[in-house]
């Protein structure tokens, strides 16, 4: 009984301490997306390559696809670009670029100089589609399932590690779900 008096507060303190300790290593700049599991916001935006042809999100339904938010003003986008090129080479899913609040001429130059990993690039000049997707920084990368629902969101430059650990398994299990 006397021991219990000592152990209970100590236990409570340990639990509190564990939570606070875990909190020390959480990144406050990472805001989880409320979109996961919900239908991907629809968009119809002019294409970067040919503004006469719109990029329409509903046309992508039926197979998984990736949305990558980028801009030439974004340093992290330059860092992840080689990774996107490598992912595009795998030809597992189409990568759709969302060119966020950018200069289209500069963006075209970027793709010419660094290579183009995108199946299509939608131009979001006003940042309206970015808001619909809850984008608050670039680069951000979303995975959308065949049913048009958002499966995953990665904030920060894409790496092969993230691609292999978070994206590929979800693409595989989505593919298995379909006969």
């Amino acid at each position, binding site marked *: 009984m006397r021991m219990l008096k000592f152990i209970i507060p100590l236990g409570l303190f340990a639990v509190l301490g564990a939570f606070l300790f875990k909190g020390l290593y959480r990144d*406050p*700049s990472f*805001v*989880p*997306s*409320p*979109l996961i599991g919900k239908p991907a916001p629809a968009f119809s935006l002019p294409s970067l390559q040919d503004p006469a042809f719109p990029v329409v999100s509903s046309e992508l339904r039926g197979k998984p696809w990736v949305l990558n938010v980028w801009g030439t003003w974004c340093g992290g986008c330059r860092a992840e670009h080689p990774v996107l090129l490598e992912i595009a080479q795998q030809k597992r899913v189409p990568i759709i670029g969302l060119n966020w*609040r950018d200069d289209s001429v500069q963006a075209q130059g970027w793709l010419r100089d660094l290579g183009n990993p995108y199946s299509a690039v939608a131009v979001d000049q*006003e*940042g*309206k589609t*970015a*808001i*619909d*997707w*809850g984008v*608050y*920084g670039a680069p951000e990368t979303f995975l959308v399932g065949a049913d048009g629902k958002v499966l995953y969101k990665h904030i920060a430059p894409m790496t092969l590690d993230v691609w292999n650990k978070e994206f590929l398994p979800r693409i595989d299990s989505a593919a298995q779900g379909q006969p």
Partner: protein
Amino acid sequence: MIRATLRGGSILALLLAAWLSTMTSALAVDTQAAFADPVQQARYENITRELRCLVCQNETIADSSATLARDLRREVRRMIEEGQSDEQIRTFMIDRYGDFVLYRPRMTARNFLLWAAPALLLLAGGTVALIYIRRRAAEADVETDTDRADSGTNMS
């Protein structure tokens, strides 16, 4: 002595100037023209002051000069002009950015425990204190009883 106070005064003036300059720059963030309707303008100011700019995190979208904050202010403006309610605008933001976008958090099933924690802790602490005090009082009673009993035996 006089020189020292003078210097102190000028430092104070400098600090004041620095503080004032930050104030004016904060006021100049939103360069959009005000609503013609003062009620709409008041609503606009209220809402933008309660929404977090997620790029800068510790600024409201009313205070931030970030591009995203500017875009979000434009969306709030558009929704007010379209006649949407404050609640609809807040829901629009939460649907896209989650509860973190609100500076005044809502009570939800997920954070209910956090909201209830002060009351629960007070209740738990109060119960422990009550039990402790009662027990102490009972022990004190027993002690005085035995004292009396002891003195009784001594007397005989």
